């Protein structure tokens, strides 16, 4: 594993190319480091200015009087190589290279830069990235030009698209998802996505790993790492872009079947990385995983105050392999005890429109105590008489006072509610992920169920068969030498044509 301490917990930072004015990239990064109160010193380096945003600036990294762990480089491309060499001589341990223009596919300039970085014993994020952020209170580093400081939390996120990554931080804040680290990986010349997931595997403060991927640098390594890491910490990924497999001319059935996405599909299925189709689903998923236990089974209960959404939720769940489980007689009796006779005590439990906040609290408690129920979806459609905040408070209270709640997976759907109204703040504080519509909740829950199922599987076995490898080798070389040949594969390996 790479040592990324200087990247995620530097004691001091220099911003090389720190701008005097806000609005420039170098200006924003320096500003963000100060605004979010990085816990060590920040040194602006600017060849032309004596002062940057009220702080004394240095003409070169060599002129900084103290030790520097991390340098953020925001100079024009043609100066990067020289600046990096200076950083190496200065004893800088890690670099974040924001500067772009390195061919973005790994041309000669980037190769030279990487060789220098490695020779001088540094680690580099980028080039062509938008920065790194860590909310760790002992560090508090926003070495990016993200406009948003996300709430502190246990989700770490690597993004291959910088711009998208920054927009996502905004969204995370809106949903109340706590972030630990954010890295825009840029061209991944040195520090790769694989390095990051390995780092986060060992990081006790990271519970969930999120990836926005456009390409895989080393898929085989990713498979081996992800297979191991996902057993402990969920990895959720959204992948855009296409692999090259489909672009080749195919001369076999298999070749013709190999669609553009089949390799990526296989990779995710084989490692149980949770793949989502959209960024929105990526966050729906992390809300669930960051706050709730992985479901123990696919059996859930649904409680609602309106029939329609209950049916929608049931359909959405069952079409994804979840089971809206029959409730025990005892559970239904308890529900009958406080619900009107018009209510349905069968799963999905429809408490009808007159349901009070108190009924929600009672129903949640009763359903969680049913041993058949491993997950619970609480749906609330705001009618006139009952207030959403009161229902949210009752649900939260019920969860806090029901011991069974700890082992079960609870989701809420306060219909149509987005953003952070009071009821959702209450639910967030109670660690209940809330979705605007039942389908989103069903999708997230079903993916978590699949992940849980994979986690409970035994370790994979790669059997090694005793085969006649020599004869197979002979058949293959024979086929190459002759214009044509036939051979067979059989239980004992490969046998040449007679």
């Amino acid at each position, binding site marked *: 594993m790479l040592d990324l301490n200087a990247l995620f917990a530097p004691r001091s930072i220099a911003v090389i190319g720190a701008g005097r004015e806000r609005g420039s990239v170098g200006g924003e990064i320096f500003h963000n480091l100060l605004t979010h109160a990085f816990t060590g010193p920040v040194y602006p380096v600017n060849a032309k200015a004596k002062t940057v945003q009220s702080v004394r600036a240095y003409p070169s990294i060599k002129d900084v009087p103290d030790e520097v762990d991390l340098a953020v480089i925001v100079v024009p491309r043609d100066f990067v190589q020289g600046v990096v060499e200076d950083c190496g001589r200065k004893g800088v341990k890690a670099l974040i290279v924001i500067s772009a223009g390195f061919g973005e596919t790994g041309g000669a300039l980037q190769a030279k830069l990487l060789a220098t970085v490695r020779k001088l014993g540094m680690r580099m994020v980028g080039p062509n990235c938008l920065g790194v952020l860590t909310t760790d209170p002992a560090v508090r580093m926003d070495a990016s030009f993200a406009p948003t400081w996300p709430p502190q939390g246990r989700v770490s996120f690597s993004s291959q698209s910088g711009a998208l990554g920054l927009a996502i931080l905004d969204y995370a804040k809106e949903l109340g998802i706590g972030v630990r680290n954010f890295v825009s990986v840029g061209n991944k010349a040195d520090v790769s996505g694989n390095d990051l997931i390995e780092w986060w595997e060992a990081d006790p403060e990271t519970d969930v790993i999120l990836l926005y991927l456009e390409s*895989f640098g080393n898929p*085989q390594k990713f498979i081996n790492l992800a297979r191991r890491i996902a057993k402990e910490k969920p990895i959720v990924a959204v992948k855009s872009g296409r692999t090259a497999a489909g672009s080749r001319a195919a001369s*076999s059935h298999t070749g013709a079947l190999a669609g553009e996405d089949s390799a990526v599909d296989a990779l995710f299925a084989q490692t149980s990385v949770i793949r989502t189709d959209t960024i929105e689903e990526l966050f729906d998923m992390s809300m669930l995983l960051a706050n709730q236990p992985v479901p123990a089974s696919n059996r859930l209960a649904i409680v609602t105050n309106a029939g329609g959404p209950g049916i929608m939720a049931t359909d959405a769940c069952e079409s994804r392999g979840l089971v809206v489980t029959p409730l025990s007689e005892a559970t239904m009796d308890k529900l009958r005890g406080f619900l009107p006779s018009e209510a349905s005590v069968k799963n999905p439990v429809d408490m009808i429109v007159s349901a009070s906040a108190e009924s929600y609290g009672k129903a949640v408690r009763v359903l969680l105590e049913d041993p058949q129920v491993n997950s619970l979806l609480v749906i609330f459609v705001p009618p006139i008489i009952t207030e959403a905040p009161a229902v949210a408070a009752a649900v939260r209270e019920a969860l806090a006072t029901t011991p069974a709640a700890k082992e079960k997976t609870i989701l809420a759907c306060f219909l149509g509610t987005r953003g952070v109204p009071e009821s959702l703040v209450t639910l967030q504080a109670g660690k209940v992920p809330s979705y605007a519509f039942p389908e989103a909740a069903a999708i997230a829950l079903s993916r978590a169920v699949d992940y849980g199922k994979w986690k409970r599987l035994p370790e994979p076995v790669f059997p090694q068969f005793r085969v006649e490898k020599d004869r197979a080798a002979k058949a293959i070389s024979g086929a190459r030498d002759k214009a044509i040949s036939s051979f067979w594969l059989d239980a004992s390996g490969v046998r040449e044509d007679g």
Partner: protein
Amino acid sequence: MPAASAKTADDAARLAKQFGVPVAVKLESRTLTHKTEVGGVKLNLKDDAAAQQAFYDIQNALKTLGKEQEMDGVVVQEMAPAGVETIVGVSLDPAFGHLLVYGLGGVAVEILKDVAWGIAPIADLDTDRMIGSVKGSKMLAGFRGAPPADVPALKDLMLRVSQLVCDFPEIEEMDLNPVRVLPVGKGAIAVDARIKLAGPKKPQSVAGAAAAC
């Protein structure tokens, strides 16, 4: 499954006698992937005369298409017993390495695309996942009175293919199509196989092989 190449109609007849009827006679060609489409597959031939005739029929069919130059001969093969027809194959991705495919659909597999993929090397659990995620795999459980198929043998075959391509990375593409999965305890047979090798020079095609597990 005994099988061998025949360059002439008389050879085909001789092999049919040697293996015992019924036999299948199939076009052997380095260039033609889809044998059925060019009239290159004759099944269930009851005697050596029928095998001989099959050779001529295939030759004539290609002549009609103006493709007689593409015929290298035929493969004569003992008929495989009845079972569920699946495909197991390999494709080489430049970044991901060898991809294994499993699926159902026989000649329609390219339309139905009812397949699942794995990246070599695959583990035992991957064969479970691949088989489980293909809709048509329900046929393996026994369909319309058919006995349940030998799924362990199918998994074994998939794992062996994985080992083969790991041992021989020069394998670029491979079709075991169909792999006939026989009733429980009877195994799984690759009725037809094609392997494309990356050459030290130009990749060559090795056609008309069979496998049994």
